[in-house]
């Protein structure tokens, strides 16, 4: 009987292989047509890339427009609307050669004059640009030299310049359309991208249609216009409704919305859908110490906490293991990451933690609480007021209690939290970041950003500053990698942060969609997607 059953199964498998094989190996020609339905939790604020501050608008801008330069699937800067570029030795003068025969959606040609008009608009005070204006940095002037040559002069050297130009909010918009439409441009944007704007039904959906003239896409996507006819972005604020709508087939892709970990697990278990993942470009949650406040003025205490916290269970409880434990200030998804940090950084070691605490003078007192000079080891952890941050803080609280450390959790609304951290009112906080380049060392650790920027550790350390400045001025990539390696070691040595985890984002896609690629910057290469 058992043999027969085995035989039957084997026979079925042979039949299945014979049936499926031709399908799998046949060269499937991408079929044009159809529509892809995306979903977002947050409604775009505006579709004017220069006036937006919403993350979702950035995603739409990748469909609607092209930046001067862009990044390939390995993160190298490659040609966008500019086919080549040069920079002067002092890093102040950037010259861009534009592609020929590029047209805006309104029919106007892309010229040097148009690029100038677009960038000038982003920088103009009357545009009141929240993000785009700052991306271009300290621009002194933009000039059109000839029909297709643009020269951007900077007031001072600005190392994130090229990287910032790849941001979707730095796309070139049609200055004529922007001028004609005025305030309505945000509801009828005109770019050069693979898709044209068609309609925005307030609170409901944004509809884009294929740009049939599109021949100037980045080298990592196929040449020519995109395959699908229409892109629809549905606005669905409720996470449970998003997943239900996806399961019912009302949505093609669960992107740019982020599905909660429990739904990811459940959808995976149905085995019906294709999944794509990308690691967050940043640390999702790190504990940071204010080195000017007791008890964290002592590096031994900070390091003790780095040894005391067990990160695996935090990742498990908070994210259902949909991510990675973090060791240093950079994730592997950002260029400059040093792989050796895994072994170099303090791992979970209660013995070492206790030894360091004792060395720093903290002895068990009444009720098991650590004491030093008659004072108990208590501190406040400032967090942003949301469920995930609170959950993680509670796990840390429970873990530290075992060492006799009393941690109080103090949640704040995000803006208020930033103000308090800038003012240095905290002893420690948990936060996360997302960024495209390792320049986060400057933003989060340089002493010039104490009190005004993101240096919430309030650490003023000339040696660290020197390394950071070197990382920004050094031009050899090999040497920069070495500097970033040293920076990662330094931040870990000084235990300014206890990096906790990095989340992996999951995108579920209906099985009839083919050709999907995920860009490491965390978006789908939509031009290559087609329906079977």
């Amino acid at each position, binding site marked *: 009987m058992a043999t027969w059953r085995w035989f039957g199964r084997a026979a079925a498998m042979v039949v299945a292989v014979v049936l499926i094989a031709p399908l799998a190996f046949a060269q499937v020609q991408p079929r044009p047509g159809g529509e892809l339905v995306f979903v977002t939790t947050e409604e775009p604020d505006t579709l*004017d890339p220069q006036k937006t501050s919403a993350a979702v608008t950035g995603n739409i801008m990748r469909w609607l427009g092209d930046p001067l330069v862009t990044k390939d699937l390995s993160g190298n800067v490659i040609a966008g609307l500019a086919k080549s570029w040069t920079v002067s030795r002092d890093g102040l003068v950037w010259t861009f050669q534009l592609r020929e025969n590029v047209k805006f959606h309104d029919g106007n040609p892309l010229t040097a004059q148009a690029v100038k008009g677009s960038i000038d608009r982003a920088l103009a005070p009357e545009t009141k640009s*929240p993000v785009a204006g700052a991306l271009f940095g300290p621009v002194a002037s933009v000039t059109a030299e000839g029909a297709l040559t643009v020269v951007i002069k900077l007031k001072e050297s600005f190392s994130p310049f090229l990287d910032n130009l790849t941001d979707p909010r730095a796309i070139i918009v049609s200055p004529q359309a922007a001028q004609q439409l005025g305030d*309505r441009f*945000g509801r009828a944007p005109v770019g050069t991208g693979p898709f044209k704007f068609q309609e925005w039904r307030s609170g409901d959906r944004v509809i884009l249609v294929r740009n049939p003239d599109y021949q100037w896409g980045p080298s990592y996507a196929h040449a020519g216009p995109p395959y699908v006819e229409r892109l629809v972005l549905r606005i669905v604020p*409720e996470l449970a409704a998003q997943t*239900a709508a996806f399961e019912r087939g009302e949505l093609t892709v669960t992107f740019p919305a982020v599905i909660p970990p429990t739904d990811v697990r459940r959808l995976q278990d149905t085995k019906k859908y294709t999944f794509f993942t990308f690691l967050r470009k940043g640390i999702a949650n790190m504990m940071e110490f204010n080195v000017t406040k007791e008890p964290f003025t002592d590096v031994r205490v900070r390091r003790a906490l780095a040894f005391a916290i067990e990160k695996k269970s935090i990742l498990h409880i908070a994210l259902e293991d949909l991510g990675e434990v973090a060791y240093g200030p950079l994730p592997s998804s950002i260029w400059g990451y040093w792989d050796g940090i895994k072994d170099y950084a303090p791992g979970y070691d209660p013995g070492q933690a206790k030894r360091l605490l004792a060395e720093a003078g903290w002895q068990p007192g009444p009720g098991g609480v650590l004491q030093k000079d008659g004072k108990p080891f208590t501190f406040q952890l400032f967090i942003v007021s949301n469920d995930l941050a609170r959950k993680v803080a509670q796990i840390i609280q429970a873990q530290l209690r075992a060492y006799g450390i009393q941690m109080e959790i103090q949640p704040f609304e*995000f803006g208020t939290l930033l103000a308090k951290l800038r003012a240095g009112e905290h002893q420690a906080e948990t*936060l996360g970041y997302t960024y495209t380049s390792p320049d986060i060392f400057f933003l989060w650790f340089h002493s010039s950003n104490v009190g005004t920027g993101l240096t919430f550790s309030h650490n003023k350390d000339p040696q660290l500053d020197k390394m950071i400045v070197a990382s920004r001025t050094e031009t050899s990539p090999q040497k920069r990698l070495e500097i970033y390696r040293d920076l990662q070691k330094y931040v870990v040595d000084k235990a300014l942060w206890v990096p906790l985890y990095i989340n992996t984002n999951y995108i579920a896609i209906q099985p009839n969609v083919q050709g999907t690629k995920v860009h490491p910057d965390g978006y789908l290469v939509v031009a290559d997607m087609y329906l079977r």
Partner: protein
Amino acid sequence: MRAYLIRRLFLLVPTLFGVTLAVFLMLRLTPGDPVQIMLGEYGSKEQVERLRRELGLDQPLPMQYVKFIARAAHGDLGISIRSRTAVVTEIGDRLPATVTLTLAATALAAVVGISIGTVAATARRPLIDSAVMAFSLIGLSMPTFWSGLLLIFAFSLRLGWLPITESEGFRALILPAVTLAAPASAVLARITRSSVLEVLGQEFIRTARSKGLAHYAVVIRHALRNALIPVLTILGLQFGALLAGAVIVESVFARPGLGRLAVNAILSRDFPMAQGIVLVVGVMYVFVNATIDLVYGFLDPRIRYQ
């Protein structure tokens, strides 16, 4: 009657003045700065200050309020901080969806609530009465974000009859309207029941019965008509609750209404937008209740206004 109407309209002015002042103050007293929220953590101090100046948020509060009121008097509710479009336009885009949903839910709640309340009051078997009241208790206690999801699960995912996130057409209106109407119909059922019971105990009912009228004729022609006055009052108040409830239901069913616009405006501290929405909803609420006052007169000719 006309004098009453005019007085009623005049009363609108202080009401709305109070409502806008309350919202203006509440929004500004809650922690959170629209500019900081827009710029996120990478916005530098200088950028924050520059944008705040450009948006006119650095002016003193009384000045901001006076400007808002002065403009509102001319029908201009300002420019949204978040979307940079005219508040009036955005509200105009969203209003029809919310009004449709609220009206559908009100009608549904009135029909269902009044019928089952009447049935409960006049049912001669206590079992029916208890069943109806238990049903209304469930309707009343279930939060809409939960009942909405249950309905989606049953009718959209399992049975596949109705869409989840579509927002146009009658089919798309069914689930949200049922979700929104459930608690209101429960309230109305309870009020109707007690009000009908009270009327049924009165002498003119005994007269009607003794002259040989059929049971249903007594209930519908005499009892219900007299019992409807308190029910109507509650219906007017429920209209406000339904507008508020639409916020949640619109989120669950992804309907493009005013409620979601309000939530976004509050979360991003979009002051002009939030103030504008409250003003519009306030006007609607006051008008609905004024209308209900007028309907009293038709139901009970003894009620007249000087």
